[in-house]
């Protein structure tokens, strides 16, 4: 099943299948890219940012960005 990162729930995990073009470069430096396993750690209330872990590196990104990343759920 595929989901946007912005729709993922606490603790869910999956493989990144797509990142919208305009975001690819922006998140590249954080190690976030297609094919990587991504775990959703937490999100902040009231449209706050999302915290994710990729390759044991934690990154926090805003809601709009999270809506541009698609993840194939594994658990």
């Amino acid at each position, binding site marked *: 099943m595929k989901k946007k990162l912005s729709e993922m729930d*606490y603790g869910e995990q999956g493989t990144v299948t797509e990142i919208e073009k305009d975001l*690819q*470069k*922006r*998140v*590249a430096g*954080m190690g976030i*890219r*297609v*094919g990587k396993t991504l775990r959703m*750690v*937490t999100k*902040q*209330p*009231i*449209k*706050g*940012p999302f*915290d994710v872990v990729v390759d*044991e*590196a*934690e*990154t*926090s*990104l*805003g*809601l*709009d*960005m999270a809506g541009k990343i698609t993840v194939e759920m594994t658990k």
Partner: protein
Amino acid sequence: MKLNTGERWDLIDRISKETVTFGAYQHTLKDAIGELTVKPMTGIPVAIAVMYGFWSVFGSFAGFFTDGFFVRLFDVYWLPWLQEVFPGQGDWLYAIMVDAGGFESGEFVLSSNCLESFGVLTSGLFVAIGVVLPAIIIFYLMLALLEDIGYMPRLAVLLDTVLHRVGLHGYAIVPTILSLGCNVPGVTATRILETKKQRFIMMTLLAIFIPCGAQIGIMQDVVPGLMGWILLYLIIGYFIFGYILNKIVPGKAPEFLIDVPPYRRPMLSNIGKKVWGRIAGFFKVAIPFVLLGCAIVGVLYQLGVIRFLGDALAPVFVGWFGVPKETAGPLIAAFLRKDLAVAQLSAITMTPYQMITAVVLVSIYFPCVATFAMMLKEGWKELLGALAVLTVVVFTYGGLIHLIGILLGVA
């Protein structure tokens, strides 16, 4: 040759497959704490506790050294000694350097403490060393500790929601907190913000609403009971005007994208070096400004300039802001030395609410000259813009505080 993002990752994947093996990773206690302090349910209470702890330690440490040691040193030994040995009691040089004194039934009398004497060598030195030094040391020490442990990014994540509403994002907490020590490095730290719009909003808010260590130190010393209210008014103003600025300043306010590094054991040598660097930097900036500002204020008093301006502007202060007319002088002097102005205000009889208003006014009034110079680096248009905002804020917010006081029946 250059690769595009996808090609570069493909190559790195291939290289990584050849050279790196990732063994099973056991999550540690540190990772667990890392997650607990960033999840809102647990993270927000922790953040509140950390901030409260920060403030309590700051207040008691600074108070301990200032009241317990420096006040005695300066008022009991230094001031009387200087008053004795400095030549020319009553003339202008004596007034500027040591003690402007006062007149009681036409008779010149010496001041009894270093906050009233207004000499460069008495009030100036006392503020710089006795009040500001302890405050700044403990402040930078605790801040370095939080930074080196790796707490700041997590605080940024927790605060992003609110700070995004004022056109900034979570990391704006770093320049904001840094400015509580000194606005100059605070302005420098705006470099972590993305756009010109964000940096403009940040610098303007810092210059107006964030009192520096010198001011906080002196407020803590002379009006400790009112600190809570003063800070509350400043924080509310920060958000109200941040919200408005975000609406009217053109430009983009991009979202938050930050790395959240793991917690680390802080290295003592690193903390030592950082704290020392910041204190040295502060003193290079602050000492000349405190002493020079003190001297200029002294000269202006001697020449009667401040009395003249105070008399001329008193109706505005009384009518618009609701503070007693005696505050006009200190409020004028605050253009040059906010810390001394606060000390002067504390000696005037007025209601607690008037005191709160007056001290908030001093804070939001005019950024110190050093901050000004820093902001100029970002561009003169930004500086002029910030000044325009400042003028509007002083009158609207100052008036609003007065109005609230009237409505509450305390003004």
